[in-house]
């Protein structure tokens, strides 16, 4: 197990290095020097040049990369041009809000996706299966921002039962305690519905197809032949085998929720990393953009790593096969 984790960790580090090279290359593609937003125009050019030399901006590219990487590793991702703050603190300030939304939508999507997926697999071609298949395809095909805008139009504008933007009601920022939690919860409903339903669709498709596969397997027949109640056959024997599939989907969805919520956060004006990313793009705040990319890519890698470790914990054959290839 330790060897397996070590191997995966090494792979992740190599990929992360590759990611950093690309991010660094993109930073260097950008016209102008990355510090141009940080000094006022009335400082003499010679002074700037001297400072840039000191910072290493005129070093050969590989040396610049090593220095940049060293800084990135210590959490110094540069300085945001727009916010005039270190990139890392700007991102950390928004991460919590995104995580909140991500948690609520993962909750919705996993519960809905797994239960309906199992039910559909057990009653194939039944009403629930047919309806949920069409609905899942629709959810996978609708642009998230369009879905969000329709919800805003119906629930926010026409029915006026839910707030349509932001995280707290304007003018009520100072309230605290339960009232504030309730206010935030009300603001979370629509974005959670958008993200939750769209992710539920993927979860449902994967759960359904892997449960259908597993139901035809010999060991399920064995479990039935043993006289186990159907509940145990499905929720113990079949589900644990489907778990690695479900974890794969989750490991794809969690980083996806951090980055993919960009459109949803933009539409609902939710103050998270997604909207920050869009603002950064709009303001051409390159250090911030690259910081976000680097952090999200690391999250993706961490999620993949956790998924790999979970596979091994669930299915002992993973360790076995790993040795072979």
């Amino acid at each position, binding site marked *: 197990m330790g060897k397996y984790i070590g191997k995966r960790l090494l*792979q992740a580090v*190599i*990929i992360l290095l*590759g*990611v950093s090279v*690309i991010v660094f290359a*993109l930073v260097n*593609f*950008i016209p102008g020097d990355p510090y141009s937003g940080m000094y006022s125009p009335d400082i003499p050019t010679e002074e700037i040049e001297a400072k840039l030399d000191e910072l290493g901006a005129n070093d050969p590219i590989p040396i610049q990369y090593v220095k940049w990487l060293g800084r990135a590793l210590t959490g110094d991702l540069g300085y945001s041009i727009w916010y005039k703050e270190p990139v890392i603190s700007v991102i950390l300030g928004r991460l919590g809000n995104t995580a909140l939304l991500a948690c609520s939508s993962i909750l919705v999507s996993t519960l809905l996706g797994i239960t309906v997926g199992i039910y559909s697999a057990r009653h194939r071609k039944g009403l629930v299966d047919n309806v949920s*298949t*069409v609905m899942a*395809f*629709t959810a*996978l*095909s*609708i*642009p*998230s*921002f*369009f879905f969000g*805008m*329709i919800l*805003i*139009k119906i629930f926010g*504008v026409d029915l006026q039962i839910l707030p349509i933007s932001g995280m707290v009601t304007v003018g009520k920022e100072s309230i605290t305690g339960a009232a504030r939690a309730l206010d935030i919860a009300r603001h979370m409903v629509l974005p959670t519905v958008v993200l939750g339903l769209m992710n539920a669709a993927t979860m449902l498709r994967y759960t359904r*197809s*892997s449960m*259908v*596969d*597993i*139901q*035809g*397997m010999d060991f399920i027949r064995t479990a039935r032949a043993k006289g186990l109640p159907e509940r145990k056959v499905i929720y113990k024997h079949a589900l644990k085998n489907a778990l690695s599939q479900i974890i794969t989907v989750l490991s794809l969805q969690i*980083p*996806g929720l*951090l*980055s*993919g919520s*960009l*459109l949803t956060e*933009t539409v609902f004006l939710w103050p998270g990393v997604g909207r920050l*990313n*869009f603002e950064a*793009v709009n303001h*051409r705040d*390159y250090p911030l*953009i*690259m910081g*976000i*990319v680097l952090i*999200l*890519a690391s999250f*993706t*890698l961490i999620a*993949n790593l956790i998924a790999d470790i979970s596979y091994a914990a669930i299915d002992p054959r993973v360790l076995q096969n790993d040795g072979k290839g």
Partner: protein
Amino acid sequence: MERNVEKLKTPFQGNLKKFMTNKLAVTGLVVLVALLLFAIVGPYVTGYDEETIDMMNMLAKPGNGHTLGTDELGRDILTRLAYGGRVSISVGIFATLMELLIGVLLGSIAGLYGGIVESVIMRITDIIMCFPFFVIALSIAAITGPSFRNLIFIIGILGWPSVCRIVRSKVLYLKNMEYVEAARSLGLGQMEIIFRHILPNAMGPIIVFTTLSVAKVVLMEASLSFLGLGIARPQSSWGTMLSAAQNMQILKDCWWMWVPAGMLVLLTVLSINFLGDGLAEVLDPKSRGTGGV
């Protein structure tokens, strides 16, 4: 259970029959053809030009000569939808072609040559796939600036790894098959073997990937254009039309300016996805993962 009856038919007939029994896939195909017809023929039928400005009818409601109303400049929405469809669907097709070009080429090379070449290519796919697709696409778009050509370039350069992996695994599997060995012993070159013997046999998964990728790209285009980083003026697509609804007033009061465009994106992507699922069932059953009893 083995069915002797089907053995008598050619594989194509059998596949066609299987495909035709998938109601969702056939519906998808029909709707898709209708949408394509609308985009191609539509502009000649509506009686308006894309940029015709009707000063008397700005922000007009549907009806009264404009079937789906007009926008803030008095342009006919239905006509613009047809033109926008041309752009959206072409982006889907061209970006997918670019993904295929890169992916098939690198996938074949990786599978065939193996060794260090393969490792390097596969690590690059790992790296690209670990980037949050949308975020990196947005960031590159911010650097390159929005345009039809840049959009295709960005999506192509970020989207090829999955087809590369498909082709590589197919090549690995097929290159040791007897008929490929036979071709090699006849002295055929590597590339000839790939194009004449291996790729035709990898066609199933590639076709499935292609359809699903067109759907994905149409969605991607709509999203990037909505944010103002996809298609740039003077060209317009469904995505740019949707971006009108970023204006709260239009979102609230002028549904005809954004709902039809969104619906067309949904309909296009949905019908392609149904079609792709039907094709997957026939051509690449494993990818769909529905076997069993």
